[in-house]
């Protein structure tokens, strides 16, 4: 499988790229003739009976558990695509061309790699998959920095990138790429979904204090949340940047006590969020009364794995999430059932988005009738589907972002098991979280043209 001779592919690259460009310019009429001659693209599985996908997830570092869950979902998706197991969401996906005989009749195989949640390591790992293992698609990741870095790489190399968990606006905003697609929601959507719920529960007159992880994702989320809370009449008292991996946040939390703020918004994720939330509760913020109101804490981006790390402290705290296993639609139920039977516990939202991305990619290949990246891109662009756990969803052509309902969740007061930590309080409809492609928070990017890599 790995004995492919790479020299050929690379030395022919320029010639073929030129031909691909010509095709793109001259457009549709050449479309059929190109197929007739068998258009070439990077890592074309050709006549081989198998097709290889690359699952690039964090296996070490802070997000290792999340990465492990993503990998479980990928393995399950491969199983289902190959017609093993109960088929999971393949049975509920609408429309679907998937037949359970692999993709385009080829058996699906996969390779794995460790992103270490570092851009360099993630790119090295993805390059290995592309150069050595001959994958046609790379997917995965558990942070936005890695997603953007690997997305850029896949664009340059000329294969498809299906983003895993990445929440920054930039992934489909200023750093969007033609070969990259994101199913997960983003910071803007979190803000738009949370706004009305916060208004309903906490009123129009709140003074918010932001603690924000000092890097790109944190900033985009802070910007998004401020926009939507100020729209409902809240004031922003202070925005404080905290170093990533600070561990002890006490020096950032104590100033909140005297600031006159009555709401603390934690723009943190992963370990930072677990630590800052745990410590904020320890400092008695939740028991405080300010301006005659109960002090409240909001965590805009939630995940169940994080909630597990923060334990008791998540009770009653609002946040948003892409998906939750307790949803009762047929797609979610089918997925939770087959995941639960396979592994003995429910999937996380990271697992869900990764599973869905794999299915969507496979379906797009079936519809395009080829693995050729540019054809797959056209098949995915503007594609509308349903039955994958988020209700009716669309892959918008303009920025390759999925548009769908967003869940607002709250830490459960009386969890019945260690997995039952969040309850869905509202499903915010898609219309409410939608924004134009050229929205200022997403401006400055350019999809560019798709790249076949050959």
């Amino acid at each position, binding site marked *: 499988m790995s004995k492919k001779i790479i020299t050929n592919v690379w030395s022919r690259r320029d010639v073929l790229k030129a031909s691909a460009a010509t095709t793109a310019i001259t457009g549709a009429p050449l479309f059929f003739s190109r197929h007739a001659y068998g258009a070439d693209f990077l890592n074309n599985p050709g006549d081989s009976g198998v097709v290889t996908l690359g699952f690039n997830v964090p296996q*070490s*570092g*802070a*997000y*290792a*558990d999340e990465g*492990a869950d993503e990998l479980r979902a990928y393995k399950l998706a491969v199983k289902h695509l190959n017609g093993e197991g109960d088929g999971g969401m393949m049975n509920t996906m609408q429309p679907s061309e998937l037949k359970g005989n692999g993709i385009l009749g080829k058996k699906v195989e996969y390779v794995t790699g460790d992103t270490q949640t570092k851009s360099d390591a993630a790119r090295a790992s993805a390059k290995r998959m592309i150069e050595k293992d001959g994958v046609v698609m790379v997917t995965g990741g558990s942070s936005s920095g890695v997603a953007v870095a690997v997305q850029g790489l896949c664009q340059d190399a000329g294969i498809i990138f299906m983003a895993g968990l990445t929440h920054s606006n930039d992934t489909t905003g200023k750093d969007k790429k033609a070969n990259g697609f994101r199913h997960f929601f983003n910071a803007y959507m979190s803000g738009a979904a949370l706004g009305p719920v916060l208004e309903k529960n906490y009123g129009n007159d709140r003074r918010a204090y932001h603690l924000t992880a*000092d890097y790109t994702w944190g900033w985009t989320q802070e910007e998004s949340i401020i926009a939507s809370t100020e729209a409902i009449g809240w004031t922003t008292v*202070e925005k*404080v*940047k905290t*170093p990533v*991996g600070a*561990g*002890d946040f*006490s*020096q*950032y939390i*104590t*100033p909140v*006590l*005297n600031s006159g703020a009555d709401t603390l918004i934690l723009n943190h994720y992963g*370990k930072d969020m*677990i*630590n800052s939330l*745990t*410590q904020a509760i*320890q*400092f*008695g913020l939740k*028991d405080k009364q300010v301006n005659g109101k109960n002090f409240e804490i909001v965590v805009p981006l939630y995940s169940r*794995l994080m909630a*597990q*790390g*923060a*334990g*008791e*402290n998540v009770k009653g705290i609002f946040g948003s999430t892409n998906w939750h296993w307790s949803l009762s639609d047929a797609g979610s*139920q089918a997925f*939770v*059932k087959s*995941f*639960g*039977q396979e592994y*003995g*516990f*429910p999937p996380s939202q990271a697992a869900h988005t990764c599973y869905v991305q794999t299915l969507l990619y496979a379906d797009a290949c079936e519809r395009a009738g080829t693995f050729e990246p540019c054809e797959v891109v056209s098949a995915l662009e503007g594609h509308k589907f349903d039955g994958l756990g988020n209700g009716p969803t669309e892959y918008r052509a303009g920025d390759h972002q999925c548009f769908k309902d967003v869940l607002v969740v709250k830490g459960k007061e009386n969890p*019945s*098991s*260690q*997995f039952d930590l969040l309850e869905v309080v509202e499903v915010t409809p898609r219309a409410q979280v939608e924004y134009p492609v050229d929205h200022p928070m997403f401006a400055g990017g350019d999809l560019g043209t798709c790249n076949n890599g050959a």
Partner: protein
Amino acid sequence: MDALILQLLNGLDKGGAYALIALGLTLVFGTLGVVNFAHGAIFMIGAFCAVTLRKILTISTQVRDESITLFEAYKEVPILEAKYPVVGSIIVDYSVPLAIIAAIPVMLALGLLMERGLIRHFYKRPHADQILVTFGLAIICQEIIRHYFGANPIPQAAPAIVAGSANIGAFLGLGDNVVYPWWRLIYLLFSFIVIAGVFAFLQFTTFGMVVRAGMQDREMVGLLGIDIQRRFTIVFGLASVVAGLAGVMYTPILPPDYHMGMDFLVLSFVVVVVGGMGSLGGAVLAGFLLGILQSFASMNEIKSIVPGIDQIIIYLVAVVVLLVRPRGLMGRKGVMED
């Protein structure tokens, strides 16, 4: 004023953690001349003593949860609580303080084992070799912990009675906003006690006297016919107990995960060196100094003048101290300078 008092407490609290880790590190430096990159891992293992104890205390019987039908879900009921409802839940509640008692023998044994089995063969080896071998050991410890406990942090609650905050403001006659979590105050007190204990031990016991003499001039003490080797082994055990206890006590503040040792490692090296190699007092002083400076540098008033200062303050102070005082705050000539 309120804000300053709170930041001072934050600084002392952080300083306590730094000082406890640095104390053990500098003991090992000073006595054995070993650069121990596994010291952070010892701190982490200490924290996981608390996790393990709680796991043991809450070993549960699984009761099928009938409300979930999609897959087999179970409710966990701790056996201890099921059998002895009152006493059992109290014991579980106090698992962190109990873990201190449990951790002392564990950490001591671990320290002795490490010294006897590995470190002692590296006394005469170059520092480079010491770094490589202890770094390898640290990675192995981490991976073992990760294998059994996963990578996600595992929350540990302080006993319910000290879960809230102390109203220091009312006590000092200041505003109502000066509140501080009880557990952090306990942690501060604890670090003072441990530091005082270590100093008293080295200052007032014969054992301590010999060790201090050995730190000054190892050969001389050896020539006097004293088995300094044995004592140094015990010192290593002591250092790991101090780091381990620091880890146990820190768990309610920072939910422990397998990587927490590495996160503290570099910082504690900086603390030791700023304090001055081979100086116990220096390590403690530097720990508190850096902790307090870090807290004050994080205040909005200061950050708005110098953006990002809270990210680099520790290293900046380290550079300034080392340039002004060549051997750190209280270092002696000739230790680790070659």
